[in-house]
């Protein structure tokens, strides 16, 4: 028996109504969620899905414990944090920012990626709502003359300059200076920018070593034996890798296989070497590699609270700079609200301009913004992998362990 459904206009109308209800159903929930009471309503815009999901979720973990840390530090504030997923796309970031402001958010924090951040910044400017940038390194973000944007993250040139300056400090403290270096870099957007930035800044920084070769490779490379072999053949005493996570693993695996033991492996501000998954995969070979990046200050009481809260809530996840900078973004928002005593955009922006936060989590001076909205007090730290953990070894005032340089060989007894 065949059943024939008759499509009348009424039936079609009912179907359309049902469809619209299905599509629109989450919206009231969304707006209700955004309208609940709190001190300051902050939209946290992060790429928690899409290609940058892993990092976006790490950022979000820093935000998820922010109010608990504020309580520990006796800050008289409780932020109402509303999460928005940018899906790693600038167009979605823009509509999400519009949605957040329509839903009553009084401040925006985000968005990890420069393209997405600029898309959000335009909305912030047009709608007159302050944006605190947690992570995004493109210098243009604070060069556009935005009135409602501040950034608590170093620009790409700041990252590179800070990292290379630390190289000299490391050589000075250890008493060992390599004369030659080889740079290996992934040739994606980030890697190419870093490699080009290093090449441009290198002559100005009076570095004690010469870069004898620069080797780039595809981010999807499955084997780096040729590249590592070429790097080894240069007989360079220092390897400067500009990695992502997977190629960092491939590179170190290949170095071990080819028994290449340079004086050190020092990452000039890239991720990869300090990531949790890198430690899990590489085991003892992950130790004694150095990343020169902004990092959490282990001596700060606020960092200690953040570590404690993070470990309690996310026992399987390592606290990293993504969570650290996102937490600080919310700290900046909270402090602005405390100072402004108002949720009005102009008052909040005035407070942001006058921000001076001495107690925070990332190594460096007080959080303060210059006329362009850039925090210029963030310092690079030398983070050495020790006992499968990223450990601050420089600057001395923040060091949690002494520096080990040159790097012990792959079969050295210190690797256990």
């Amino acid at each position, binding site marked *: 028996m065949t059943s024939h459904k008759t*499509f009348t*206009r009424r039936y*079609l109308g009912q179907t359309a109504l049902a469809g619209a209800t*299905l*599509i*629109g*159903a*989450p*919206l009231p*929930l*969304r707006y209700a*969620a955004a309208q609940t009471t709190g001190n300051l309503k902050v939209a946290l815009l992060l790429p*928690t*899905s*899409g290609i940058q*999901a892993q990092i*976006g*979720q790490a950022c979000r973990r820093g935000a998820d414990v922010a109010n608990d840390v504020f309580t520990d530090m006796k800050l008289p504030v409780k932020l109402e944090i509303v*999460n*928005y*997923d940018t*899906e790693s*796309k*600038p*167009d*979605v970031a*823009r*509509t*999400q920012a*519009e*949605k957040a*402001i*329509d839903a009553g958010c009084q401040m925006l924090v985000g968005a990890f990626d*420069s*393209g997405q951040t*600029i*898309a959000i*910044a*335009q*909305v912030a*400017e*047009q*709608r007159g709502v302050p944006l605190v940038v947690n992570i995004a390194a*493109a210098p*243009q973000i604070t060069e*556009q*003359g*935005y*009135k409602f944007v501040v950034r608590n993250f170093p620009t*790409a040139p700041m990252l590179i300059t800070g990292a290379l300056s630390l190289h000299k400090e490391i050589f000075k403290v250890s008493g060992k200076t390599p004369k030659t270096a080889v740079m290996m870099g992934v*040739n*994606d*957007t*980030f*890697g*190419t*920018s870093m490699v*080009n930035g290093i090449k441009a800044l290198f002559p100005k920084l009076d570095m004690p070593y010469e870069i004898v070769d620069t080797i780039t490779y595809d981010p999807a490379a499955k084997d780096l034996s040729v590249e590592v072999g070429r790097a080894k053949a240069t007989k360079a005493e220092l390897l400067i890798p500009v990695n992502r996570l997977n190629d960092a693993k491939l590179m170190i695996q290949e170095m071990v296989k080819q028994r290449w033991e340079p004086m050190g492996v020092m990452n000039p501000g890239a991720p990869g070497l300090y990531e949790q998954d890198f430690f899990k995969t590489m085991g003892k070979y992950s130790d004694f590699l150095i990343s020169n990046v902004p990092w959490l200050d282990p001596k700060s009481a606020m960092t200690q609270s953040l570590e404690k809260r993070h470990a309690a809530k996310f026992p399987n996840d390592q606290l990293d700079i993504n969570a650290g900078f996102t937490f600080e973004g919310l700290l900046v928002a909270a402090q602005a609200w405390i100072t402004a005593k108002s949720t009005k955009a102009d008052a909040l922006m005035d407070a942001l301009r006058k921000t001076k936060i001495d107690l925070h989590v990332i190594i460096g001076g007080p959080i303060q913004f210059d006329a362009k909205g850039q925090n210029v007090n963030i310092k690079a730290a030398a983070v050495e992998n020790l006992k499968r953990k990223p450990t601050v070894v420089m600057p001395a005032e923040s060091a949690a362990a002494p520096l080990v340089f040159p790097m012990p060989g792959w079969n050295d007894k210190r690797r256990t």
Partner: protein
Amino acid sequence: MSFIRRLVGNAPPRILWSLAILLALLLVAPALLGKYWLSVLILILYFAFVGQAWNILMGFAGQLSLGHALYAGLGGYIAAGLYFHYGIGPWAGVFAAVVVAGMAGAIVGYLGFRFSLAGVYFALLTIAFSEFTRVAFDHWEWAGGSGGLFLKVEAVTDIINLRGGPVLFYYVILGLAAGAFILCRALLQSRLGQYWLAIREDAEAAQAVGVPVLRCKMIAIVISAALTALAGVWNAFYYNNLFPETAFAMGRSIEITLAPIIGGLGTLFGPIVGAVVLTGLGEAFTDLGDVLRIPGIKQIFYGLALLVIVMYRPAGVWPWLADKLGLKERQP
């Protein structure tokens, strides 16, 4: 008048009235909608427009391109680069953008059509061009390299240089979408349009009855590339930043194809309906994901919804909807 009469053709009055009402509503939409809904509407119009452009090549002429991000990226970079380096506004820069993208389309098309690459092989060729252009732009200093090209954001509205808020960009993309709709209708009503449909159905048979297949396909890809370049220019000035990794991304090419596929390949309303359905579903599932606090759940539901639509409406939503609403065009 004869052009308008030909354009209207056999369209039933109710479709004309519906279109007039829709256009009137779209014209006043910025006054009625909040900023968020306006930004959603902008996305719908954008995807309807690029979908219409892609539909010319695939829906009308039957040539599958999975690398249309190439033309959008080229258009965006050329116009944005001319503005950034020489202060040449986008209304002038757009001509260079369209010419360059059209030439790129012609090169891809000639290589593909002249050497009889069809189906997935032609699709692979389009992907290859998009990919190596991405790599080239990663290393092209004039275009900002991999660090991206950023346009200065101005607080004032400047129509000459396409600087301003969402309302300005809304009306520009509305104009583009409406223009593309009219153009596609006119093309379909023309002899060229009939040739395309013949090629789509059976290229060899079309050739046998005297249709200049190569020339028709070349015209299709050049028009399609040029229109897509317009979308790229709009996109560059709306978002004010361009990165090779996103401008020429495979994902962007796929996004361009989705609206016409879901709405109805080869139909005029397909890309529009598809853009409404996809953007609506996308926003709904984004909200659902935010409420449930499960990252990535949107992509799962979105994928499932597309699967259901493709399974139950393989010809797209519009042909079914037009049938149910009695909006099917009378056959002469």
